[in-house]
Each structure stands twice: as C-alpha cells, then as structure tokens.
C-alpha cells in the first residue's frame, strides 16, 4: 500500500500508518496535525528560559539579544529559571505516580476493611513479603489483618514528615549512603513534592544545584516510594504477573464484538472493567445485540497492567489513542487518569464511541462522567460496561476500519517471574553477565512523542541493544512498541546477538522482557538492587543503562531523575527544556556523575543512543573486571 511520504514519516508502525491515512481521508485531526500546526514552537520554551511562576512576569531570558534581559524581574538568571522549571516537571510527574500509589494503597485499605466493592487480596505471598519489609507481624494473622496494617503503613508513607521511605531501603547500602550524603534521601512522599513547589515559588530557592537536589529527592520518593507502592500493592490486589501470552496493536479490536478500551493508568479501574465484562448477563446482552461477545482491550499503562496480569490484548500506545477511536469500532473509551488526550472528546463525537471519564480528578470536554469509586467498584464497572454494550447497536458498520495488524507477544515478567524463569535464583543471569553472553541489562521505557517518528525511536534502539547482547527490560509505551514489533516473542531472539540468543533459548524467554506499566519501573530498580546486592556492589557499578527514546511526560522527567539518582546512566531521545542553562545542562550530563555515579545523555538518534548505552556497559564491565 502506498502511503504519502508525509504519513510514512510519522510512524514506523503499519497499523498507525493505515489509520493516519484513514484519518486524512476522513479529515480528522490527530496529535501529529496539531504538532505541525504548533510549529515553530517557542524557542524560549524549548530552552526552558520562560518563567511564569509569578505575576511580575511572564519573563523570558533572551540568549541572542545583546541588550535583552539577562535576568527575570526578580533577578532570576537563566540557570535559576531552567532549574526551577525542571524540578516543577519532576513534581508534576512524581505527583502523578504517587497519587496512583496512593489510590492503590487506599484500595488495599478498603479491601482489608471489607469495604471495597469487588477487590480481593490475590497474592498472599507478596503480602507477607511486603509486611516483613515494614516489620508487620504475619504469623497467625489473617490476610485481612496483615493487609490492614500494610495498607496503613504504606498510606502513612505519603504524609510522612520525617524518616525515610521504606522501599528505598531495598537499594544497596552504598546507594542509600550516597543519597544521605548528598542530602537526597527522601523523608516522605508528599513532603518532597510540596517542598519542590515551595522552593520554586518566587524568592525561595535560587541556587540551581540546591533546586536540582530537591528535584532528585522527590523523584527518589517517587521511584522507590509512590511508584513502588503502586506496583507492589497492585501485585497484592491483582496478582504478581507471571508470563502470559497476548497480542498488541489496533488489530485486537474486533469487528463482531463489543469493543471496550480501558485507557489511563490505574488497575483499580481496569481490573474491574475486565472482571465486569465477564458477567454472564452483560455477555448475554451483547449477544442479544448481535455481537459475539465483549472484547476488552487496553491502551497505555492501564493496558500494560491488565495485559501483564491477564493477557488482555493491548490496542496501542500513547500516540495511537485517537487512532483507536477512528477505527469506528469502539463502543466505549473508558479512562481514568494520565496521558489521556482531551482531543478524544471531539473525536468521539464523530463516531458512536462513548468517551467515559471515571475519576473525579480527571474530567474531559465531551466526556460522559461515570464516576468510579472503590466502594461500589464492581457495580459501577458493570454499569460502565453495560453502557458500552448498549452502544453496540449504534455502531455504523460503514464507518468501521480496523487495520489487521496485531502481533503476538509474551509478557508478564515481574521481578518474581524473572527469578522463577531463572530457576529461583539470579545466578544464571549473573553468570551470563559475567561470561559476557549478556553484555548488560537495559531498561528502555517512556512515552511517544510526535517529535520522534512514532515507535522508530523505541524499536531501533531496542534492536540495536539486543543485537549487541544487551538484555532489554521494558515498560510503558516502549513495551507496547516492542510488543507490536514482535520483539516480545521467544523467536525474536533470532534478532539478538549470539550470547543473548543462547540465554533466551535456554530460558525460553524473549530478548525483550515486558515488566509492566510506567510505575513498574520500580520492578526494574528492584531487580538492579537485587543484582547489585548479590554482587556486593552499588547499582552504579553494574553494566546497566536506561533510555527513554520518545519521552514526553513530566512523569518521564521524574523517572529519569530517579533512575539516574539510583546510579543508572540514562539516554533521553527528545531534548529536555534545559539547554538554555549551560550550568544545568552540565550538571545533568556531567557533574551528576561525581555526585550520583550516573548522568543523563541526550541523543535523538536511537542507534547512537543505543551505542552510548553499550559503550557505558562495556566501561562498567571493564571496571568490574568481567
């Protein structure tokens, strides 16, 4: 099929290309169109040199005018403005992840109290393990009793004023000592975020280094705090993922079934949607409308959650959300929080699709709000699914266009699952790394961004890594991209270098391991911590590296910050808004090495980015003497 060069330039994913052509035919606007219209984007913003923090502004520092202002009205220099803007992004991202964790903790609390409407405690082993970390007694107690104590302990982490965030102690002692030395060992989750907001208020913290350190502190409270809590409590409630087969891409939508997309982030909602859709009455209702059944699929991170745990198919990643609606085959796009485009409202009006918002925190123009709460979870979920089923009759078959593309994948590699696959201990992996069969481990994560050809950044970088015997762990939209590209099948080992190929064959795993949603990057950190502890070194000594080839969200900024703070070199594929301050740029890309043992690199070319990671791993291997 011959696509216009314009469309081919936007994505490497065949389903996306087909849908973009379809969108053009139907004269429907997508994020790509809005991005083009937005060009040229403001240079001051791109450089991070625009400050709107107080009403003496807005201020901008001009890098090119001799006679232009070099300081904001309050006297803030470019360095200060960039640093403040950067850590506010961390605050936004950390807040998002942490609220997600908070919601999970709340759900566990209600479940333990018997007040939740349909949640169960599924993984008692995990419950006990977490309880142990918090010093909660488990012997002779019911799971509800343990869960109650755990929920309260975890809940308390958010409002903690002093002390430390419990899960951060999973990190090697050396790493924790480094955090303490740098003054970035977080005291509590919300506190560090609030302090960012305080410090970035006009006339508070005006030292770029000091500002950045607080940003890192809050990010650690995210990665080892809020996100980790989200992951762990989700595992307790919904089960720790084990390897399971699934499919990814828009082709998972069905012509003859009620299609429901769960989009957003929290499994608190999506798990219920999945469960509700199994209700015989609703299935009956669907059949009565002429559908063969109810097809629940996921998008973005909530899609990752239900895929990891139940093998529910994933329709696509961030930039594909509009395209899913444009198939004309979606009865309901059910959303909760994060990464949901407000453009969906208008778009759904062009089709029969119902755009249903569920969170009191996240309302959208053109959405039907069916507010979800944990107390009446299953009841509400059934109502929402019912609304979708009813909508099937409104589907206009003439307007339906579902690209066939969908790819099989093997997902579900939680840390526990990986260790199980290794035979119960990390040793086989450690030996493979030591022998060089596996050069190192990469965590490739992050969003989509129309600034980068859709999925090209993700796939090319990952392919280059596995070619060089780097085992890739992945989450979020990168994971979805890899799944769509067939990299999550054991057969994909054929694209790996010989060393990695052998390991994958021996273990029956793909070269790219899906570890979950974005909060599940905490899983990757847990694995790194375990490996580091096993080898008796710090995480920064390991041949590991991170990458976010197409990142866009503030959550990504927080993630990048906590990954680097944990000692892992990270490559960013889109340019962050910091170049307006040479000082901040230097801190992030160079000075961080001496303080954190790791730093950022910015490289928009995915192959070059992969090579940076590989070179980094080689250097670390050399230093370890392996």
């Amino acid at each position, binding site marked *: 099929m011959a696509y216009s060069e314009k469309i081919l330039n936007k994505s490497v994913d065949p389903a996306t290309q087909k849908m973009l052509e379809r969108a053009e035919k139907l004269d429907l606007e997508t994020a790509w169109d809005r991005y083009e219209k937005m060009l040229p984007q*403001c*240079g001051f913003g*791109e*450089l991070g040199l625009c400050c709107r923090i107080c009403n003496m502004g807005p201020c901008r520092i001009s*890098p*090119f005018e*001799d006679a232009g202002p070099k300081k904001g009205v309050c006297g803030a220099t470019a360095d200060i403005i960039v640093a403040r803007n950067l850590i506010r992004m961390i605050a936004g991202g950390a807040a998002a992840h942490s609220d997600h964790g908070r919601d999970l903790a709340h759900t566990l609390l209600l479940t333990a109290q018997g007040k939740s409407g349909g949640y169960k405690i599924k993984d008692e082993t995990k419950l006990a393990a977490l309880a142990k970390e918090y010093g909660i007694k488990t012997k002779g107690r019911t799971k509800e009793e343990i869960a109650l104590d755990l929920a309260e302990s975890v809940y308390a982490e958010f409002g903690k004023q002093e002390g430390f965030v419990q899960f951060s102690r999973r990190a090697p002692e050396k790493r924790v000592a480094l955090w303490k030395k740098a003054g970035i060992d977080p005291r509590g989750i919300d506190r560090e975020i609030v302090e960012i907001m305080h410090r970035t208020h006009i006339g508070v913290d005006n030292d770029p280094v000091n500002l950045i350190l607080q940003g890192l502190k809050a990010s650690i409270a995210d990665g080892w705090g809020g996100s980790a809590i989200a992951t762990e409590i989700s595992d307790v409630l919904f089960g720790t993922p084990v390897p399971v087969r699934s499919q990814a891409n828009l082709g998972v939508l069905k012509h003859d079934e009620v299609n429901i997309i769960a989009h957003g982030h929290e499994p608190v909602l999506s798990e219920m949607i999945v469960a509700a859709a199994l209700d015989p009455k609703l299935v009956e209702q669907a059949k009565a409308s002429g559908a063969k059944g109810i097809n629940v699929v996921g998008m973005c991170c909530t899609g990752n959650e239900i895929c990891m745990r139940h093998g529910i198919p994933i329709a696509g990643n961030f930039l594909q959300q509009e395209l899913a609606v444009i198939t004309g085959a979606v009865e309901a796009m059910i959303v909760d929080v994060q990464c949901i485009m407000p453009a969906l409202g208008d778009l759904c009006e062009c089709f029969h699709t119902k755009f249903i918002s569920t969170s009191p925190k996240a309302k959208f123009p053109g959405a039907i709000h069916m507010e979800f709460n944990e107390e009446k979870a299953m009841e509400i979920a059934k109502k929402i699914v019912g609304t979708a089923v009813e909508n099937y009759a409104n589907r206009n078959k003439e307007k339906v266009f579902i690209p066939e593309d969908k790819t099989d994948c093997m997902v579900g590699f939680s840390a526990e699952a990986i260790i199980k696959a290794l035979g119960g201990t990390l040793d086989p992996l450690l030996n493979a790394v030591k022998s060089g069969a596996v050069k190192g481990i990469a965590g490739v994560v992050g969003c989509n961004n129309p600034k980068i050809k859709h999925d090209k950044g993700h796939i090319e970088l990952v392919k280059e890594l596995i070619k060089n015997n780097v085992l890739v762990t992945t989450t979020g939209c990168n994971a979805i991209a890899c799944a769509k590209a067939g990299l999550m099948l054991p057969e994909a080992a054929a694209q790996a270098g010989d060393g990695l190929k052998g390991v994958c064959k021996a273990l029956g795993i793909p070269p790219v391991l899906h570890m979950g949603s974005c909060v599940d990057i905490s899983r990757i950190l847990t694995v790194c911590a375990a490996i580091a502890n096993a080898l008796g070194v710090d995480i920064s000594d390991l041949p590991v590296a991170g990458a976010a080839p197409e990142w866009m969200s503030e959550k990504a900024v927080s993630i990048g910050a906590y990954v680097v703070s944990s000692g892992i070199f990270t490559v960013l594929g889109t*340019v962050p808004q910091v*170049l307006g301050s040479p000082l901040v740029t230097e801190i992030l890309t160079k000075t961080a090495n001496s303080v954190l043992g790791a730093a950022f690199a910015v490289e928009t070319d995915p192959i070059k980015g992969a090579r940076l990671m590989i070179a980094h791993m080689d250097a670390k291997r050399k230093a370890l003497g392996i």
Partner: protein
Amino acid sequence: MLNARHLGFKEGDMPQPKEIFVKSDRCVGCKSCIMACAVEHSQSKTLFGAIGESQIPKSRVYVEWVAPDKKIPLVCRQCEDAPCMYACISGAITRNADGVVITDTDKCIGCWTCVMVCPYGVIGRHLEAGKAYRCDRCPDRDLPACVSACPTGALVFETVPAYSKSVRQQASQEFAKAEGE
C-alpha cells in the same frame, strides 16, 4: 530625502523585490522573530546548536516596546536611497540587484558611521568582530526566518504593490462599513 523616483526611475522599470512589512498591531512581543533570525544567522542553523556557539549569533530584527502596550518590530528597510550606503567611509555598503543593502564585512572597518546615520536604528554592532550587520532578507530562504517564525502574522513578506493593495482593500472595507452606518 532623495529617492529613486527623483532620479528618474518609474515604478514599473525595476523588478519588484519583496519587503518585510510590519503589522505592529499584531505583534504580541513574543520575540520568536528574534530567535529565528539569530538561529538563521548562526553556524549550526539549529536553536540548540546556536546557543552553544562561541560567537553568539545576532538577531537583525528588533522588537521595541512603546508604553503602555504597543510592541513594534523593527528591521532594516533596505532603503532605496540608503543613508548608510552613502555615509560609509570605506565603501562597504552596496545595494544589490535584489534590492538588499549589504555590508561587505571585509571592507567594514567598524567605524559605525552607518549606525550614526540610520534613521531606524536597525544597524547592529557586532562586538566581537567589530563589524556592522543588518538584515540581509535571508538570501538562502524563500521566506525570511522572522516572517516564517511569527506566530501572529505581524511580519509580512510581500512586494510594495501587493502589500499596499491589501492595505487599501482593508481600508476600503472600513470606509464602506462606516458609510453604510
């Protein structure tokens, strides 16, 4: 001021170059034009590259503020009878066939006489190089960088007749509306 008409040229004789016209009521002072001009006149021609260059590239367009709320973009008018061209004591300034007034940097000795006579104040002084510089109408582009970058259409690249016509059309619409009342 003397001009080419006095010297015998009629408007139809000369090919019509395009000028950069300014609609100051549309200017919001975002200074995107300044950024784009500087980047266009940098070595690397990218924003991120330009800020790292050892000689910070200069913008040839200026945005000035007039209290309480007017923003006025200013750029070299490429005068047909450019005062700077006549005042230059080293003969460095010429007006080329496209109607662009150009300072030959080899000849420029940085005496700033041109700055002294420019009635618009749009000749810049390059401190490091000691040379004068002004808008060159972006010879390598179809559309000058500033015009391309302006998000509100405050900068317009058009020939004099075409631009004047559009102003007349606007004015006549206003007249017609006013008379109709």
